[in-house]
C-alpha cells in the first residue's frame, strides 16, 4: 500500500490527542488507527484485525472506548482522543496505576493486546470505578487476548480498581 500518497484527498482537522491540541491535514480516507501510527508516529495503539473484532486499537474518544480502525479522520474533527501514550502522566517517571496493576498481575504476556485492554479499563472506570467481575468481563469483551486466558487481566483490573482515585481518571474526560 502506498504510504503518505499526497494525491489522496486530505482534510484539515482539529482535535485533542492526549491533552495536546492538534491542527492537522489528514488523508480523508485514512482510519484514525492509520493516522495515529503512520502520520503522527503514535504506534502504541496496535493494528490487529482492522475490522473491529480484536480491540487492539481501542482508544478513548470523547470519554468512550472505540475501535480506531473503524473511524475515518474526518470523523474525529473536534474530538478529544486518548491513547496509551497519554496514560502515564506526562514527564513523570512513573506508570499509571492501571499499568502498574497490569505489570504486577502478569497481565501482559506478548503485550500486543495490553494498550487496548488498558484503554478499555480506563473507559470502564470512567463509568464505574468499583466493577464486579461480570462488569469487568463485559467491559473487556471487545478486547481479545491470545496469551493469558484473561485470568491475569481480570485480576489486574480488579487490583487497579482497588487503587484508583478520581485524580487518576480526571484527565481522560477533560
Amino acid at each position: 500500500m502506498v504510504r503518505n500518497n499526497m494525491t489522496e484527498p486530505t482534510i484539515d482537522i482539529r482535535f485533542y490527542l492526549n491533552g495536546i491540541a492538534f491542527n492537522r491535514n489528514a488523508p480523508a480516507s485514512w482510519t484514525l488507527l492509520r493516522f495515529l501510527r503512520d502520520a503522527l508516529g503514535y504506534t502504541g495503539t496496535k493494528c490487529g484485525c482492522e475490522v473491529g473484532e480484536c480491540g487492539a486499537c481501542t482508544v478513548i474518544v470523547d470519554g468512550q472506548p472505540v475501535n480506531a480502525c473503524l473511524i475515518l479522520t474526518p470523523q474525529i474533527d473536534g474530538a478529544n482522543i486518548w491513547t496509551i501514550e497519554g496514560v502515564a502522566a506526562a514527564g513523570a517517571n512513573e506508570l499509571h496505576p492501571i499499568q502498574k496493576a497490569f505489570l504486577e498481575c502478569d497481565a501482559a504476556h506478548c503485550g500486543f493486546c495490553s494498550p487496548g485492554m488498558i484503554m478499555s479499563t480506563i473507559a470502564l472506570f470512567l463509568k464505574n470505578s468499583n466493577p464486579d467481575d461480570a462488569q469487568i468481563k463485559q467491559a473487556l469483551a471487545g478486547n481479545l487476548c491470545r496469551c493469558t486466558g484473561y485470568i491475569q487481566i481480570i485480576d489486574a483490573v480488579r487490583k487497579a480498581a482497588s487503587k484508583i482515585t478520581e485524580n487518576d481518571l480526571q484527565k481522560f474526560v477533560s
Partner: protein
Amino acid sequence: MSLPEPLIPKSLGDALKAKAGKNVVAIAGGTDILVKLHDRFDDPQPKLLILDHLKAIHKIAITKKEVTIGPLVTFSEIEKSDILKAHASQLTEAASLAGSTQIRNRATIGGNLANGSPAGDLISPLYVLGASLELSSSKSKRIVPIEEFFIGPGKTVLKSNELITAIKIPKLNNHGFFLRLATRRALAISKVSVAASLIIENKKIESIKIALGAVAPTVIRATRTEELLLGKALSPQVIADAASIIKEEARPIDDIRSNALYRKEMVGVLLKRGLEGILNG
C-alpha cells in the same frame, strides 16, 4: 483503502442534496461499511457521505403517541435510554447484546437498518414494535412500515437519493422479549434471534407479534404462531405447542455461522424461553 474525497455535510438538507450524487454511500458509525471496504480495491470506490455532524437526526424524542429515534442514535444510547427502556424493552435488550462496548459506541440504528442484514439485531424488535421509517430525499419524504423496507439480504427499498431520517415506534403498553444465540456472547453475529411483543389482558393474549432474525432472507414475522397464541392464556402446554409450530415457520439456510437444522430447533427453544419468562413473570 483509498477513497474519493468524502462529503461532509453540516446540515441534513445538505446531506440529502449530496446523497443524490452518483455512487455516494452514507456512513454513520462505520462498523459495517469500513469492514466491507477494508479489503476492497476495485473501482469505482464509493464517495462517502459522512453523517457524524448532523445533530438534528441524533436524538430520541417522545410524544403522546409515539417515540421517534434519529438514525444516528447509537446502540449504546439506545441501551441507556429510559424512554426506550419503558416503551421498547426489546430494542434496548437487542442493542445491549450486539457487538462490544467499542462497537456499540459507534454503531447506529440507521446503519443497522440500511445495512439490511437479516441478522441485524435491532430489526426484529422494530418488527414487533410496529415501527415505521421516514425515508427522505432532497425533494420528498415517505413513510414505510418496517416490514416493507427489506427485500432481501443487504437489499432494501431505500433509493440511492434517500436517507433514513427517522424511526417511529407507536407507544404500546406491551410485554416483550428479545433473545438471540451466537457463537459467543460478545462480538458475534446472531445465528438466530426471536423478538416478541404481547399485550395481555385478564391473562389472555389480546395482541401478539413475533419476529425471527437470521432464519430467512429478511427478518420475518411468525404469523402462524401468532395466530395460535392469540386469545389464549399462556400455559406450559400452549407454549410447547407454539414452540413446535414456530420451528416450521423459520426458513433458515446453512452458512458459515450455523446450519438450518440447528437454527430451526433454536427458534423453538428461544420462543419457549421468552414466553416462559413472561408466564413466570
